[in-house]
């Protein structure tokens, strides 16, 4: 039996709106891994939601055409019924969580699939082990890093071993080792007969193990574009004078625990550092401390000659701007335009810069839209534009490429390099080595709470 068959499948969120999925005719066989490729907002996540039966059930809108998934008719089957045969991984692992603890959360999937009670906890543990996440058992999910949460979400989807897997950016927040293991595991499952559809911008991670690539443009299935890695831009010649940014024996804490100890490093004007390290290694904690959102228990952060360690975030802007991980959840304004201009208006920065950023990050057509009606990638770009719009001396970006297609990643690289060319510094925490190579000229590596620095590009 073919795992997925659709014929002229259509979906739109509002009547009169353009179709978000427009006449998709698709066939996926058991054992096949299909990669969906397309720009942010091209309809990849929506197509996966329609295949999972979640749209229009949870999002309203209008569906047309026909489709079968694991033998179930999309027009008549209930979403929970489809979920018994097709596992769905949400783009944002935050939205996937049902329980408060990893083992219970994975067990919940097995409970919903009617697995025998005596096997559930052992199976849940095995699923977490397969995804390198057994050490998270017993911790609170809301206190895990984004990458750790993504591992738990993946384990919860894989545990019941459904016939079809629909995965929306499964490696976006995973470190390289875990992503590599996940992709190997997916290939193994496909070889056992599972059909897998993956929407993923990181072709470098999954492309080599997929059987077929399908492109999506404005909701329509099209032949895929050839993808190329990000081109590193010419590095800016860093000045040889005093450093613009200096970390001096700085400690970063999460709660009562010191996560990063005695970090010492510096950046010359025009230098960009890629902050690398495993999931849960303290990258976000370090950036939050540098931004002033966490207190600095000891050590100094000097930017442009000022010691910022005793000050909070509100006193550091616009000298320091921070785009946190998952910024789309905490946008404040009713329109994209107002969101990007909020900081510049408050701080008296040049509004023209903000307007230029809206154009550079392809947000003009969304300017009057509520950010909550935007896709994950679009929200990410809104937050990035809001960060750049402050024209800071030190820009901190935490995993900025989630949900972002190659073209927008290239735009981000260009913006970072232009920021450096103006004499600014940036620290980019990322698992995306392609991005790190393209935009950074030095590497900061976090290992066991110690910051190791290296001058060469990552």
């Amino acid at each position, binding site marked *: 039996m073919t795992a997925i068959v659709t014929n002229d499948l259509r979906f739109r969120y509002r009547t009169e709106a353009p179709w978000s999925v427009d006449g998709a005719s698709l066939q996926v066989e058991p054992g096949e891994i299909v990669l969906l490729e397309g720009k942010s907002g091209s309809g990849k996540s929506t197509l996966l939601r329609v295949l999972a039966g979640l749209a229009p059930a949870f999002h309203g809108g209008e569906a047309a055409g026909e489709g079968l998934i694991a033998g179930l008719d999309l027009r008549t089957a209930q979403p929970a019924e489809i*979920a018994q045969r097709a596992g769905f991984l949400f783009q944002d692992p935050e939205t996937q969580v049902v329980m408060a603890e990893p083992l219970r959360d994975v067990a919940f999937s097995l409970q919903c699939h009617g697995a025998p009670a005596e096997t559930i906890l052992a199976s849940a543990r095995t699923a977490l082990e397969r995804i390198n996440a057994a050490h998270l058992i017993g911790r609170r999910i809301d206190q895990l890093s984004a990458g750790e949460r993504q591992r738990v979400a993946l384990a919860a989807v894989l545990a019941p071993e459904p016939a079809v897997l629909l995965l929306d950016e499964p490696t976006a927040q995973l470190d390289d080792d875990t992503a590599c293991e996940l992709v190997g595991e997916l290939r193994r499952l496909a070889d056992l007969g599972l059909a897998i559809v993956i929407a993923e911008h990181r072709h470098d991670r999954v492309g080599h193990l997929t059987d077929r690539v399908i492109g999506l443009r404005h909701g329509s299935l099209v032949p895929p574009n050839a993808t190329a890695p990000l081109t590193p831009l010419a590095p800016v010649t860093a000045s040889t004078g005093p450093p613009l940014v200096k970390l001096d024996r700085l400690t970063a804490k999460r709660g009562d625990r010191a996560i990063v100890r005695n970090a010492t490093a510096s950046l010359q004007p025009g230098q960009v550092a890629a902050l690398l390290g495993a999931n849960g290694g303290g990258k976000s904690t370090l950036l939050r401390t540098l931004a002033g959102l966490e207190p600095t228990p000891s050590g100094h952060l000097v930017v442009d000659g000022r010691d910022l360690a005793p000050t909070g975030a509100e006193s550091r*802007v616009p000298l320091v701007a921070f785009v946190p991980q998952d910024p789309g959840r905490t946008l404040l304004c009713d329109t994209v335009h107002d969101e990007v201009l909020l900081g510049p208006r408050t701080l008296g920065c040049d509004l023209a810069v903000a307007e230029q950023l809206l154009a550079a990050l392809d947000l003009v057509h969304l300017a009057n839209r509520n950010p909550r009606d935007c896709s994950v990638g679009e929200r990410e770009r809104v937050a990035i534009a809001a960060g750049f719009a402050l024209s800071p001396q030190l820009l901190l970006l935490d995993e900025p490429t989630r949900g972002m297609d190659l073209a927008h990643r290239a735009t981000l690289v260009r913006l970072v390099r232009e920021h450096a060319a103006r004499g600014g510094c940036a620290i980019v925490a990322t698992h995306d080595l392609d991005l790190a190579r393209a935009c950074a000229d030095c590497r900061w590596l976090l290992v066991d709470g110690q910051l190791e620095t290296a001058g060469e590009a990552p």
Partner: protein
Amino acid sequence: MLYGLVAGARLATAILATAAFLRLADPDRTQALASRVAPRSALTVALSARLAPTLRRDANGLRETLRLRGTGAERGQRAAIRQGTRLIEPLVASSLERGIDISEAMVARGYGAGRLTRLPEVPLQRNEQVAFLCGVVGLLVAVVLLVGVAPYEIYPLADPIATSTAFVLAGLTLGVSIVAAGSLRTRP
């Protein structure tokens, strides 16, 4: 104005009482118990279990965004009120979004397809017993009030006696919940 205050007080009491309950009882076990005795209400329990922590986290995140946009530098009570007011709309939008998210997540995991395995649960701990006892007593009081004293109205009027009674009862519920939550060690 009075009507708004009463409605707001009711909502705040419900949120705080739920938060106090969940400081004592493990949310996962509460949800599992609800799935067992009232499967269709498990979503409500799941939403309630996550309401207070996620509201707090979202409020923190939004406050951080305000600081990162440079609007957190103002000091004083008026500035605090202005900032607090500014957070209300995105916070409400965020909690509504999360409501949809969790119901979608539960269904995407297969909940509601009719085959839910029950996991053997360890016996309730002392703090959970207190929480559930408080919950049952609160429920009984609510039923008695609804049947005998103040029947449920979809669009209640702001009657002075009923309003005062509601405030007193809300205060008592809250007080008991906070004392109970504070006097017992919470689960990790």
